[in-house]
């Protein structure tokens, strides 16, 4: 079947088998191997991407279901030679060890913060239910997300380059987060 999918800003077409999963399309057809496959039952969340702005596990979606859709993968998150601030936060707070869950975790985390809601330690833990990590014990993942959240709460969510230009240094963000907590 023919699909037309816009991935990280580039639209491409391909003939795929009807059973092709979106994650396999991303990895095998587009060679975007930043999205990982960690299970075969949609539990682990390693394959989380954004589909039309929503976080989805790309192993639960057929490529044909994503026809005429817009997908952002971990490769599309960073740009202009800079990491996305969430990626920076994971690096700053040691939010990853082996790194296998990380791309899915970051894609989920970006939307988690963007969607608002409870950004307390408990609130983040409860909303990370769909993503498994076997290395970090989650503590530093939660810290990373809170670190990032301290940064973005201060202004309206911005998109793309504008957000990049606007983002504070991590140290400033940390101080901001600390002030908020006290």
């Amino acid at each position, binding site marked *: 079947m023919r699909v037309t999918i816009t991935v990280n800003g580039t639209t491409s077409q391909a003939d795929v*088998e009807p059973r092709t999963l979106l994650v396999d399309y991303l990895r095998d057809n587009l060679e975007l191997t930043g999205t990982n496959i960690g299970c*075969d039952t949609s*539990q682990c969340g390693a394959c989380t991407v954004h589909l039309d702005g929503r976080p989805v596990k790309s192993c639960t979606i057929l490529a044909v279901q994503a026809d005429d859709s817009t997908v952002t993968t971990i490769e599309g998150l960073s740009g202009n030679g800079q990491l996305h601030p969430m990626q920076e936060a994971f690096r700053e707070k040691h939010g990853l060890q*082996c790194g296998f869950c990380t791309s899915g975790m970051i894609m989920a985390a970006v939307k988690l913060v963007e969607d608002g809601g409870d950004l307390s330690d408990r609130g983040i833990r*409860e909303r990370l239910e769909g993503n498994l990590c076997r290395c970090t014990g989650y503590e530093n993942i*939660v810290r990373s997300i809170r670190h990032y959240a301290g940064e973005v709460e201060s202004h309206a969510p911005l998109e793309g380059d504008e957000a990049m230009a606007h983002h504070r240094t991590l140290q400033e963000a940390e101080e901001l987060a600390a002030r908020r907590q006290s």
Partner: protein
Amino acid sequence: MAVVRSPFAHARITSIDSTEAAGMPGVIGVYTGQQMRDAGFGGIPCAWVVPDSDTKTPDHPPIAVDTVRYVGDAVAMVVAKTETQARDAAYAVDVDYDVLDAVIDGHAATMDGEPQLHDDVENNVCFHWIVAGGDIDAAFAAADVVVTDTIINQRLIPTAMETRAALARWDVAMEELTLWVTSQNPHIVRFLLSLDTGIPEHKIRVIAPDVGGGFGSKLPHYPEDSMVIFASQQTGLPVKWNESRTENFQATSHGRDHRQEVEMAATSEGKILGLRAKVWANLGAYLSTASTGVPTILHGLMLSGAYTLPAVHEDVYGVFTNTTPVDAYRGAGRPEATLMVERMMDLVAHEIGMDPAEIRRKNLIPPFTEGHEVITGLVYDSGNYEPALDQALEMIDYPALRKQQQAQLREQGRYIGIGVVTYTEICGLGPSEVAGAVGFGGGLWESAIVRFHPSGKVNVMVGVNPHGQGEETTFAQIVADQLGLPVGDVVIVYGDTDRTPMGWGTYGSRTTPVASGAIMGAITKIKDKGVKIAAHLLEASTEDIEFADGKFSVKGSRDQSMTIQDIALAANTAWDMPEGVEPGLEASAFFNPSNFVYPFGTHIAVVEVDPETGEIELQRYAAVDDCGPIINPMIVEGQIHGGIVQGVAQALWEGAAYDEDGNLVTGSLMDYAIPKADFFPPFELGKTETPTPVNPLGVKGVGETGTIGSTPTVYNAVIDALLPLGVKKVDMPMTPERVWRAIRDAEGGH
């Protein structure tokens, strides 16, 4: 490549018909175990055969030849142009089986009349190993109190987030092999591969970059490694295998799985006198790479724990069953020892009415800095256990928690439990002489090459293989700090046998303690050579040159100096070298530690149990760990966090379950409960820092302490909560159903 796997736990293969599969789209070849055998491929070797035992090492063909022995055992492989085509065709391979009775339980398998897995292994007993010390009979004769328990240290499934993969490329003209594989120890895999594939070691290159977690499960040399090699030789093509998560559950090694019958003797004042145990260690269907060492050396020798134990006797039976092979899983033997000891300590405390923290304090080994021999024969390196206990008790405000909060809440019908564990563990494996003496088929030293490029930038090549622990950062810090370099000027190279010197790999919390010794040795050589070159170029004597902050200076004349980058350029150009000094600024060193290292600590957990539902809430978790001087606090904390989570998971959620026929019931992430983020509160971490004398930086390992300490801590906390309800025991994992049943049974309802 896709693998056809046995759906039966025990069966004879009567025929394999690959006609249909061979004709399917994209299929290049279908291969069987007999074909591999005919091509000269041997069985998968076991690298650890415990001496002073009667260990049997039955053949482990990479693909079963006539008999399958566990669900998931390989029966055939299909090579096709795409993974999907290979998997489709694998379903079409028609295998006929003559199904045999299976035996799953490691204790039951030793009984007469049970199914036999291997012809030459009577009653499925692979080995009987004994650890003994002191006068155990006298200890029990003198005891005021004897407590007993049967502990099921259940089977766990490591479940690294990345499943395994292997890609072989056989170069037919050069007769050289490149294998990309998810391994914790590429040099060991290369060595073992040379044994079963027959390819000489110097013509094998094993590449294992950025491996996605291991926890011991990527330590073994697996059948699929050899299968892709065989397939590449047969087809003349590179052949890749990606393990599915379902396969990972069935065909990647499991951990733990002990039945332990234990008794402890003690005085009425709470002094422990002796520990006696019988252990049946379920090894699965075949011996995996390190499987016999885990329930013996890494378990039995640690039964003294952090305590002065006058006498010990343990019989360990290693048993074959129709289950997935068992090997190292985070902690590997030490969690099985620590839970046993810490459970007994609590039972004694309860029996004599002593506080669990107090009985531990009473039995702790006094501080020592230069070695302390325990009853099992091990010599602990250094330890000072009581400050860690005090710190943990203070962090959690133990007296208040115990006396006020706990008592008060119980009056309100709320059941709060507190678990306290003081542990030590053996890691930093280890002296190579001991490795040889205990039957490990390799060395346990490490090596490193520190190489300065002309521009002053540095590569450090190591034989260990970090796969998430972060030693590439830790090592860069060490090199930068010692040589006065910006940390960004140092890149650590690992994960490729052609680019790195020999090393025995990353497991057993050995990477930093052992490899840092090699790195330090190379750094010393670099400094010594730098002094010679600087003395020559600055026209001073070597005795007058000092090195600090990245500069070689003439003593008392700081303006007469050269940076290490200057020296690197001078050495690499070699325009003007001192007589007898070789060009280049590069050094190689080997480090064989004089002993293992023994990190230690105290963990405390607070749980609340809902007696109506059996649900357990982990409310607080405090851990004070001592892994010697800390190089990178963030990395150390990260290791402890992850370790705690895996250990708590054994106490509360995780457990592999087989049905009677040997089907793995917990065969997916839907059924096997690896923990999620909201299962935990934030952890409260403390530390003490007691250096070890056995390596230059005094560092101990920290990869497994969290796991080793946390399972008994949470177990004891839950039982502490349940004691007022008359419950002294709940098998792990302590699921709500089991807790609820235990409460109901204690009430005498059933």
